[in-house]
């Protein structure tokens, strides 16, 4: 008989780690929504942001700054790096590629991925750099009800909280601020937005900047979890099924997709894995996504694709 305790434990940790994938997926959604670019470089942006943060942090701490002021300065430095990246991407790659079809833009972001991966490692080093912002141990809840208690990793909870704050912040930004409204206008119709005086170049810079900041937030959580190192770019691949389940254009979709993928793959690994050989979570997320897409081809929250001749 499968223990209820274990089931709940796997379910919770799955839901929470799903939210961590959502952090990466959010960056994809923001850019796709505003400019129709499928930004493959999101994983590399997380790496760049993480490296910039951890290296400047180490440097400041080594030079006698107190830890928390070093963290703030480090975050500012990393945010600045992401702003420069956003400006360069917009100015040198996507600006000239305006009005090209989706596949070309996708390919261009792969080019950007290469440049970012090379540059980030060249400037900041290719070693593994530990980042200690959040506690990484665990709580054991309800020890009275279940033998050994229910295990909940603190870092996962932190990730969940941060994701919630981030989504709330993004919602406010999109609904209440002038720039946010302009972003939504651009997402709806480029030409119409331009005709009421919204500068597309500026908006796209802002979008890449916001995606860069989301990458920075993802980097703080994932960097604490794994240490900042090259392997972080592989997170992009874990974020893709999240993305297509939720739909490319929906911020809440990214969160819901994350929850589904996280819980689904962890439960599959725990209950299906032992029978067919383990290590199934990588493909299970994609198969889950495939099944969802067969029912809803645009993802759960994606905009309906209306085709006309």
């Amino acid at each position: 008989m499968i223990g209820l305790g274990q089931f709940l434990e796997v379910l919770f940790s799955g839901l929470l780690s799903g939210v961590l994938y959502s952090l990466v997926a959010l960056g994809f959604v923001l850019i796709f929504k505003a400019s129709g670019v499928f930004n493959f470089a999101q994983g590399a942006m997380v790496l760049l942001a993480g490296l910039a943060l951890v290296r400047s942090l180490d440097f400041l701490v080594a030079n006698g700054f107190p830890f928390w002021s070093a963290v703030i300065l480090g975050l500012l430095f990393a945010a600045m790096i992401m702003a420069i990246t956003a400006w360069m991407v917009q100015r040198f790659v996507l600006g000239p590629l305006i009005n090209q079809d989706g596949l070309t833009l996708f390919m261009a972001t792969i080019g950007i991925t290469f440049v970012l991966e090379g540059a980030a490692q060249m400037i900041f080093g290719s070693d593994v750099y530990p980042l200690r912002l959040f506690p990484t141990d665990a709580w054991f809840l309800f020890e009275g009800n279940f033998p050994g208690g229910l295990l909940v990793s603190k870092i996962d909870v932190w990730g969940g909280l941060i994701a919630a704050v981030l989504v709330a912040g993004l919602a406010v930004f999109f609904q209440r601020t002038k720039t946010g409204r302009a972003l939504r206008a651009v997402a709806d119709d480029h030409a119409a937005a331009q005709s009421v005086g919204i500068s597309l170049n500026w908006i796209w810079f802002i979008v890449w900047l916001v995606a860069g900041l989301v990458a920075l937030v993802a980097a703080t959580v994932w960097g604490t979890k794994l240490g900042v190192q090259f392997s972080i770019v592989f997170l992009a691949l874990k974020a893709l099924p999240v993305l297509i389940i939720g739909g490319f254009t929906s911020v809440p979709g990214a969160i819901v997709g994350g929850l589904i993928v996280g819980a689904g793959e962890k439960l599959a690994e725990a209950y299906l894995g032992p029978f067919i050989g383990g290590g199934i979570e990588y493909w299970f997320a994609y198969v889950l996504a495939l099944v969802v897409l067969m029912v809803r081809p645009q993802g759960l929250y994606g905009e309906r694709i209306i085709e006309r001749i």
Partner: protein
Amino acid sequence: MRKLTLALAAFAVGATASTGPAMAQNEQFLPSLVYRTGPYAPNGIPFANGVADYWTLINERDGGINGVKIVFEECETGYATDKGVECYERLKGKGPTGAGYFSPLSTGITFALTEKVPGDKIPLLTMGYGRSESRNGAVFPWNFVAVGSYWTAADVAIQHIAKEFGGFDKLKDKKISLVYHDSPYGKEPIAALEARAKLHGFTFKGIPVTHPGVEQKSQWLSIRQDRPDYVLLWGWGVMNSTAIKEAAAVGYPRDKVMGVWWSGAEPDVTPAGDQSTGYKALMLQHGAGKAKVHADLEKHVIGKGKSPTKDDFAQVLYNRGLLNSMLGVEAIRTAMKKYGNKPMTGEQIRWGFENLNLTADRIKELGFEGMVSPIKLSCEDHQGADVARVQQWDGKNWKVISEYYTADRKILDPMVKDAAAKYAAEKKITPRDCSKES
């Protein structure tokens, strides 16, 4: 257009080739397949530095091997098999006598090169990794899994666990799990562990982790439920530190986790901070720390600024790089005794490996005392040693916590023989008769 591209490619190849004749003839070319970038770079860098520094030391301190200068070139593989094959093809023909020997530091590249080296007659030194059955020199004349194979490691690990529990009879009905990198590297030890499990009656369970191993939550939750008595870790790169962190998160005691010698270096434990304290790992004989050779390195190589080595000096993987180069250089020296003090070909170096006999005195003379025990290779036995120790991370340093264990060849030899025979049958190889080799 296609021709144009070819011409362009030809230009670069030619340009590199044209530097060939300018080289002096009294040079030994040694290639180095490295990965200083990509997901496994934190582990690849110290090893590559150790390999290069020892060669530089030989040149700087001794003026080469018996007067023959070492010329070496690195090629970045990024741990990818196809890139490794390209590097191999690029470097194999360089220098007056071609490449001396290859050490790819990747099980995948080792498997691919195993198919190519017999044709090119270049030895493959896979110290502590690669095909376990390539110990059999009759079937694998060009592979040298010197110092230890994964089967040796698995066997020694079980011996240590038995000792902790108080004897092999105590292993009965215990549970031992293996968390492994889902690749040929991680799968190699399973056969040896299963053999031991049958012998002592413990339950063995393999738990695969998909490359690159950044997500292991469900694996460790199942361990938490399963409560095995010991967990073995066969990881590489980010997978090791992630495993330690997850072990800490699920509250599995770290002193019941033991890694293979590729999971027991500084980049594996430092990212997890205090959580790594108590974690154990096998040693490929040597550990971290300085021996006599390090003083020479500081004086002749590091001090003169001829090396990129920084913090990794005298770390575990750096020392392993030194040892790797030392074995290669000694094999070349052995070959020179027979063939004269000139650059050696791959075939001659293979003879050198097969007749390599590192005695305790020689090891002391080389400054490697305490890092390696005496080792003797032969035509039949391309491994030469069956011993390993266990070390434990105390939060700052690796501490050796055991004496040398000797792997049980009664268990492993039949396995080597079977696997080699199967390979020979599949590839239609007639094994050499080692009694006829000089």
